[in-house]
Every structure is written in C-alpha cells, then in structure tokens.
C-alpha cells in the first residue's frame, strides 16, 4: 500500500479520526433502523454503506499516519499552523459572511441580504475601495435579478420583515 503522494496537512489526522467517529455513528443509526432482522430489511443497505465508510476511514487513518508530516515553520503551534494553512482569515471571514447571509435571507429577503453580502464580500476580497464594490454589487445583482426573477421567473425569498 503506497502512502499519500503529498505531506500530511495540518489537522489531517484529527479529521480522519472524526470521519471514523462519524462512520461509527452512521453505523449505529443504520443498525437502529431494523437491526439484523432479515436479508432484505430497510436497514441492510444503510448498514452496508456505513460498514464501507468504517473500513475506508480506518484505512485512511493508517495511511495518514504513515505519511510524512508537513514541515511546520519553527516556533509555530499546531493550532496556528492549522489556522494559517487550512482556515486562513480569508476563509473565516467569508464563511462568517456566508452564514450571516443565509440567516438574513429568511428575514430580510433576497434583494437586501444579497446586496449586503455582495457588497461586503467584494469589498473584502477585491480590495478596490467601497465605491467599486458598491457598483459591482449593484450591477451584478441587477443582472442576476433580471435573468432569474424576470426571465426564468424563479421565486426568490421575500423575507418576513417586509411583509
């Protein structure tokens, strides 16, 4: 069995163990459906899938542990390293914006929340000043709204705040 073609990434071992735990949980939930009552019961196939997941996650753990570790910069803690390489500030800010956007969607409706999301994320990622971000956000949203709401007649969330 050949090991990973690349050095192990920060957090990869923990992730592999989390997948194992998740697989165990799925297997337990699958077992609860109908146990081992018959060869054609509703739970057989979910259990098979969970068993494959279990097997594959054990293999993944073995392979991950055999891989050469990623060379950390000296003096950097594991957590710091994970932050830098896997979830840098870009990702954290963007995911936070995403979560805020989807929550706002239900209350504020599509147009307002999408506009705010576009404006803030473009201002953050593109960094050409607020005016440029404002123009792109407004322009992009108008195009999307015209194409999807007016031409494709897709229903978009209205938001309960304005009803």
């Amino acid at each position, binding site marked *: *069995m050949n090991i*990973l073609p*690349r050095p192990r*990434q920060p*957090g990869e071992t923990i*992730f*592999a163990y989390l997948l194992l735990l998740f697989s165990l949980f799925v297997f337990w939930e*699958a077992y609860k*459906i*109908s146990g081992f009552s*018959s*060869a*054609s*019961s*509703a*739970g*057989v*196939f*979910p259990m098979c*899938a*969970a068993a*494959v*997941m279990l*097997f*594959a*996650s054990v*293999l*993944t753990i073995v*392979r991950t542990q055999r891989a050469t570790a990623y060379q950390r910069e000296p003096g950097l803690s594991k957590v710091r390293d994970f932050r830098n390489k*896997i979830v*840098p500030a*870009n*990702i954290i800010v*963007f*995911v936070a914006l*995403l*979560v805020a*956007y*989807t929550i706002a*969607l239900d209350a504020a409706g*599509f147009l307002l929340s*999408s506009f705010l*999301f*576009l404006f803030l*994320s*473009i201002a953050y*990622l*593109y*960094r050409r000043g607020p005016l440029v971000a404002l123009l*792109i956000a407004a322009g*992009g*949203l108008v195009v*999307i709204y015209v194409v*999807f709401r007016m031409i*494709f*007649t*897709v*229903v*978009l*969330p209205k938001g309960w705040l304005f009803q």
Partner: protein
Amino acid sequence: MSADLSNFLMVWTQPDFFALTAIGVFAGIYIGAIPGLSVTMAVSILISFTFSWDVNPALALIGGIFMGGVYGGSRSAILLNIPGAPSAIATAFDGYPLAKRGEAGIAIGISTVMSVVGGFLGIVALAVGAPAISEFALLFAPRDYFLLAIMGLLLVGSLSGESVAKGLFAGALGVAIGMVGLDPMTAESRFTFDTIELMNGIPYVVAMIGLFGISEALVQLHHLETPLVKQDVSRIVPPWSLVRKYLPLAFRSSATGIVIGALPGTGGDIAALMAYDQAKRSVKNPSHPFGHGAYEGLVAPEAANNAAVGGAFIPMLTLGIPGDAVTAVIIGALYIHGLKPGPMMMIETPHLFWFTVGNLTLATIFLLIFGLMGIRLFVKMVECPKGVLIPLIVILSVVGTYSIQNSVVHVYWMLGFGIAGYFLKTYGFEVGPIILGMILGPLMDASYRRAVLSTQDSFSLFLWDLVSNPITFVLAASVVLLLLSQTPFWRPARTGLLRVMWRRGGGLPSL
C-alpha cells in the same frame, strides 16, 4: 423512422430550442474556461432553474452546456496552464508549452476542431449503441442493476482522488446520504432523527450545489491572486494540412473516449488522460516531445473528452446509471422532470432520445462556431477577478438551491454541504463520488432488496444467483476483479501470472 427523424430535427427547426442550445454551448464554453467554475457546478446550479420548464427546453440547454463545458476547459489549460475543468487536465500538458512557444492561437484552433471531431463520433456511438444496449438491458434483472451500480461507484471511487480508500469513503457516504428519508418499500424512516424535514430525504441538487459550488468557491479563496499571461491569439483557424495529419489519431482517441465515457462512473477527465497516455505510447515521432508542446498531446485528450460526452449518455439513458458526475446531475434533473432513465425510457419516450441526439449534434456544430471566434472577449472573461467571481457564485448557488422547493432550510443544508466539502477536498477526498453515491444508493438499495426478495429472503440463494446466470456472472466477476485490482495482493498475483504465461512460451499478455 420518420418520427425519429422529426424528433432529431426538432431542436434544429424550433427557434427556442435552437437558441437554448446555442446559449448552452456559449455559456458552457465560458463557464468551463473560467478556472474555478466547473461544468458540473454550472450544470448543477443551472438545472435547478429549469425545474419549472418542459423537459425538451431543459434538455436542450443542459446538452449544450455539457458539450461546451467539456471543451471550454481546454482554453484556460492552454492559455493559463490552469485546466478550467477536470476534463482538460491532460490538455494542459502540451497545450501550455505550445502557448509559451507563441502558438496559443493554433493550439486553441486545433483543440476546437478535434473536440468537434470527437464530439461527432461520440454522438454516432450514442445513436447506434444506445438502442442496442437498451434492448439488451431489458434482460437485466434487479441483481444486475445492483452489480452495475456497484461497478460505477467502484470505478469512480478508485480512479478519482488520491486514494481508493478515500474514493470508497466518499461513495459510501453518498449512499448513506441517499438513504435518508422514508424507505420507499416499507415506509420505515431511515436516518431521519424524527424530524419532518428529513422524511423526504435530502435532495441531491442541494448537496450538489453545496459540494460543487460553495466548497469550490471556498477552495478558490486560497488562489485569489493568479497572475495572468498575455498570449498571442491572432490566428485561430488551423491549416487544413495540420487537421488532416492528426485525424487518424483523433479517431483512435475518440474510440477510447467513447468506451471510457460509456463505462459507468468514468467520464471525460479519465478518458482524456487515458487517450493522452495512449498517444504518448503509440505515436513514434511526435511534432515535439510530449510535454514540450506536441500537437499529438493536444489532439488526443481533446478528441477523447468530447467523444466521452456521447459515450456518457449511453449508460445514463439506457441503464439509468450515470457515466460521470455531470451525467449524475442530469439524471437527477430527468427524475425531477418525471422521467425514469433506464431501458424503459428508450421504449416509452423514444422521442426524447432522438431529441437528445439531435440536440448534441447541433451543440457540436455550435462548438465549432463559438470555438473559433470571440477569443478576445474570452480573454476578458477569464480576467474576471476571483474576488468578484466567488461572491457571485455564492449568490447563484443560493438562488439555485432556494428555487428547488422555495425552502430556506435547503439553503442551510447547501451551506453545510459546502463547508463539509471544503474540508473533504482539502484533505484529498473527491466530492464527485458522493453525488454518484446519492443517486446510485437508492437504486442499489431497491435492486438489491428486490433481488433478495425474489429468492424468498435467502442470502445464499442470492449469492447462487450471482454465479448461475451468464449476464450476472460476467458482471459479478467484473466487480470482483475491480475489487481485487485495488488490493495489495493483486500485484504479486499479476506478476506471478505473467511469469507462468511467459514460461509456457505464450509471450507477455497485455494485462
């Protein structure tokens, strides 16, 4: 026959279908070409907007996007050395060195023409092969479908991603997610955690948009600053002598593409890589060494990946088993439009089959037209900064997800899949097998249980069935071989076998 012909021509004669195909190809080329926007992402997001349409216009648009997208990836592979789509990975090997030599225009031209050649051959294979296979598929019992689906998952799991274990995990995870909801046979709830929202299962379009849209957008955040190179694209249309010289290779590569595309679970990306490898081994005197700007290295993958489009439609339309991630998405769309892909679909709705063939043919012609013009506009589009593109992908993903059932809960799900997908991708898991598993899972579950029920719930009789019937036996043996080929025992066994054959004087077999 005349009815088939009129269905074939429908897309050519009705202005709206004609226009939708053109728009699809155009959009496909540009979406496929922009690194970070894959065909699968485009099709998954756009499909959700076509749910309220009739089947035919939806199919016209989707077919166009598929054809255009598979080709479009080659452009950024040539110009930027970044494959715009997985099917263009092999194109970059020789395409980018060609561009560096100042032959970007000709490289784009030749890859367009060869894509069109491959596309046409794939369609011919579809038109001839699908009716024959679907007739044959009527002989298939539930257990055969079960085995075919396993084969598809194994193939996609073992060929994609960095390890078989990760591919298997992704496939099985998809199967488990596909089981969520009320069991269609006994109405027992599976993985629902007693919540009403989960009773109907998780729609795969939601997972698809999350996994291909949001998670890809998050991955792209790592590559915000990609330097752009200006290329010479003044001459695009390749000289006829060059085209004629490489036609035989294009035919050979297309044949590879069709076969690989038609195998359940393998699509354009693998077809292109296989064809490239084949060309590398079979072409004795390439125009330049492979990897340093050989035209052969451009012709082979480009012909193969578009030939794989027609190929991939074969198992999708005849067996209901997706050929690759995009066809998995298209199958999802067909189900939502109330169709059931499989051998009965060819019998009950033959018009849709001939409509699809006509649509793909037209799309290939548009490919030639759009492929050879509008390069300047294209260069502008590829320069679209990612800081603007990524937020726009998010908005489109949200619109697409919400429009499926007008449910904000689905948007939350989509976001969850997106974030989970980001970590899976970061640690070397492919998300394609998850979608394939979600679609194949319920099919495998139902056909397995039907097969076991037909043996009065006896598992040993079911196993006997696997070896006692010729069709089933061949399929079961293929699955076992596929599994064996992934184990560490296989290599010694293979070399041992080779040694035995060698000693008997039979020469080396091509295993």
